[in-house]
C-alpha cells in the first residue's frame, strides 16, 4: 500500500512535470510537421483542426516543383560541407599544437580563440559585407564558406584541444621513439585516436552552418541562396503560404535534429569548459 502510494507520488511529482516540459519542447515542432501535412484548404480553415483530417504530401511536392527549394538545399549542403572542410583543416592542426606543445603565448592564443567567439555578429557582418563586395565575392560559395568556416573555428579549436588532451602523449612519444617523424605520428597515431572528436567537431560545424541565417542573408544573393534565407523569402514571395513554409521547415529541421542529438553531450561539455569537469 505504502509502496503503491509513493509510486503514485513519484509519478505525479516527477513524470507529470517532465511530460509537461517534453510537451512544451516538442509542441512547436509537432505543430510545424502537422501543418505541413494538411491540404491547403485545411491550413486556412477556421476553427482550426489539430490533426490533419486528410494527410497529404502536396506541399512537399509543390516545394520542389514550383520553388527553388531543391537548389537551395543543395546550396546549403555545399556551403556546410565547405565550412566543415575549412574549419577542420585549420582547427585540427591548431588543436594539436595547443595540446602537444608548451610554447610562449599558448594561453593567450587559446584564450583569444574564445574571445573572438564572443564578438557580436553585427560587429563583424557590416565590414565583412563591405570587404566581400570589394573583393567581388558577394553571392559566391567562397564568401559563405569563409564566413561560416571562420566563425566556427574558435569553438572547434577548443573542442578538439580538449579531446586531444584526453589522448595520452605517451602514445606519440612511443611512436616517435620507434622512428616515426612528427607528421607520421600525427597521421598514424593522433588522428585515428582523435577521430570521434573530429566527427563531433565536424557535426557541430555542419549544423551551425546549416542553421545560420544572418551571414547567409547578407553575403548571398540569388545564386547561392541557402535554405534558411530561402524559407524567410517565401514570406514575401507567396504572401505567407504556411503549408509550403512548414513543409520546408520540416525538411530543413530534420537532418540537424538527428545530427545534433548524436553529439549534444560533447557539445555541452565543450561549451561549459572550465565549469563542468569533462
Amino acid at each position: 500500500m505504502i509502496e503503491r502510494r509513493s509510486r503514485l507520488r513519484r509519478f505525479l511529482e516527477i513524470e507529470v512535470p517532465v511530460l509537461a516540459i517534453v510537451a512544451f519542447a516538442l509542441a512547436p515542432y509537432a505543430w510545424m510537421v502537422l501543418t505541413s501535412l494538411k491540404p491547403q484548404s485545411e491550413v486556412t480553415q477556421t476553427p482550426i483542426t489539430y490533426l490533419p483530417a486528410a494527410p497529404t504530401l502536396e506541399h512537399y511536392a509543390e516545394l520542389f516543383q514550383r520553388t527553388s527549394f531543391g537548389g537551395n538545399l543543395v546550396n546549403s549542403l555545399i556551403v556546410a560541407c565547405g565550412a566543415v572542410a575549412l574549419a577542420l583543416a585549420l582547427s585540427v592542426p591548431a588543436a594539436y599544437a595547443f595540446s602537444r606543445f608548451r610554447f610562449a603565448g599558448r594561453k593567450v592564443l587559446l584564450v583569444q580563440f574564445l574571445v573572438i567567439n564572443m564578438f557580436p555578429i553585427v560587429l563583424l557582418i557590416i565590414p565583412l559585407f563591405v570587404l566581400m563586395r570589394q573583393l567581388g565575392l558577394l553571392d559566391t560559395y567562397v564568401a559563405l564558406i569563409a564566413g561560416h568556416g571562420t566563425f566556427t573555428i574558435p569553438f572547434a579549436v577548443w573542442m578538439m584541444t580538449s579531446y586531444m588532451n584526453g589522448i595520452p602523449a605517451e602514445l606519440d612519444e612511443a611512436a616517435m621513439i620507434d622512428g616515426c617523424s612528427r607528421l607520421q605520428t600525427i597521421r598514424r597515431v593522433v588522428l585515428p585516436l582523435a577521430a570521434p572528436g573530429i566527427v563531433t567537431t565536424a557535426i557541430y560545424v555542419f549544423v551551425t552552418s546549416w542553421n545560420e541565417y544572418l551571414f547567409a542573408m547578407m553575403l548571398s544573393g540569388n545564386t547561392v541562396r541557402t535554405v534558411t534565407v530561402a524559407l524567410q523569402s517565401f514570406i514575401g514571395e507567396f504572401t505567407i503560404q504556411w503549408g509550403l513554409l512548414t513543409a520546408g521547415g520540416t525538411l530543413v529541421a530534420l537532418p540537424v535534429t538527428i545530427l545534433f542529438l548524436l553529439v549534444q553531450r560533447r557539445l555541452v561539455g565543450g561549451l561549459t569548459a572550465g565549469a563542468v569537469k569533462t
Partner: protein
Amino acid sequence: MTLASSRLAARLQPYFFLAPALLVTVCIVFYPVVQTATMSLYDFILYRPRNVPFVGFGNYVRLWNDEAFWISLGNSVIWVVLAVGLQFLLGFAAALLLNESFFWRSVARAVVIVPWALPSVIIALMWTWMYDFNLGVINDALMRLGFISEPYPWLASPDTALYAVILTLTWQGFPFFAVAILAGLQAIPAELYEAAEIDGATRWQMLWRVTIPSLAGVIATALLLRTIWVANSLDVILVMTGGGPGYTTHTLPLYAFLRAQQGMEYGYGAALAVVLTIMLLSVVAAYVARAARGVDR
C-alpha cells in the same frame, strides 16, 4: 643543419601548426572588428561611397541624442534579463527532474534538446505561425480553454510583442541550461546526499545546501555564456517582428543591423555595434576568466 638552427625549428613548430587558423581568424574576425571601429568614426553611407567624411565621435554624439537608441537599450535589458532568467529557471527545473530515475528518462533527455538544434529562422517562423491572429494555434487553444474570448494579435500589439518573442527565445534556449546543469548534477558525489540524509535534512534543505552550492560554478558559467548569446542574438526578432510594431521589439544589435542593412548607414550602424560590444565586455571578460582557468591543466 646546425644544432642551433634545428633547435630553433623545433621551437617554431607549434606556430606552424597554428599559423593557418590564426591567419584566417585575423582576416575574418580581427580585421572586421578594427574596420567597424574605424567605420564608426566616419559618416559612411553605402550608396554614397565617394563621399565619406570623417566625423570623429559624431556618430556617438548622435547616438546619445537618438531616442531609438535608448528605447533599444531598454528593450535589450528586458530582453536579456527575462529571456536568460526564464531559460535558466525552466532549464534548472528540467535538469532536476531529468536527474531523477524513471523508465523513459533517456528518451526525455534526448527530446528536450530538440529546440536547441533548430535553425533560428525556423524557430521564428514556427512561432510566428503559432501566434497568428486568425489561424494560430495559441489563440485557438486559449479560446477553447476560456482564457480569452477573441483572438489577440500577440506579435502586432505593442504591449505583448516583445514578451511574445521572449517566450520564443525561452523555448529555444532552456535546453542549453537543462543539459549543462544536468551534467553538473551528475558530477555531485552521492555521498553528500547520503550524509545530508543521515543528518536528517529535508529535500528542500538538500536542494539549497547541497545541490545549488555544488552547481554554483556550472550555473555561473552557463549564465554568462547565455547572457552573451542572448544579448547578441537578433535573428529570431528580425524574422518574427523585424523590430516592430514601432520600436517595441528593437534591441541594440537589431537596431544596429537595421540601420546598416536597411538604412545603409554603415558608419552609424558600426557605432551602435561598438557600443553594444563595449557594454558586453565585462560579461565576456568574466566568462573568459572562468574558462581560461582550465587551460593550464
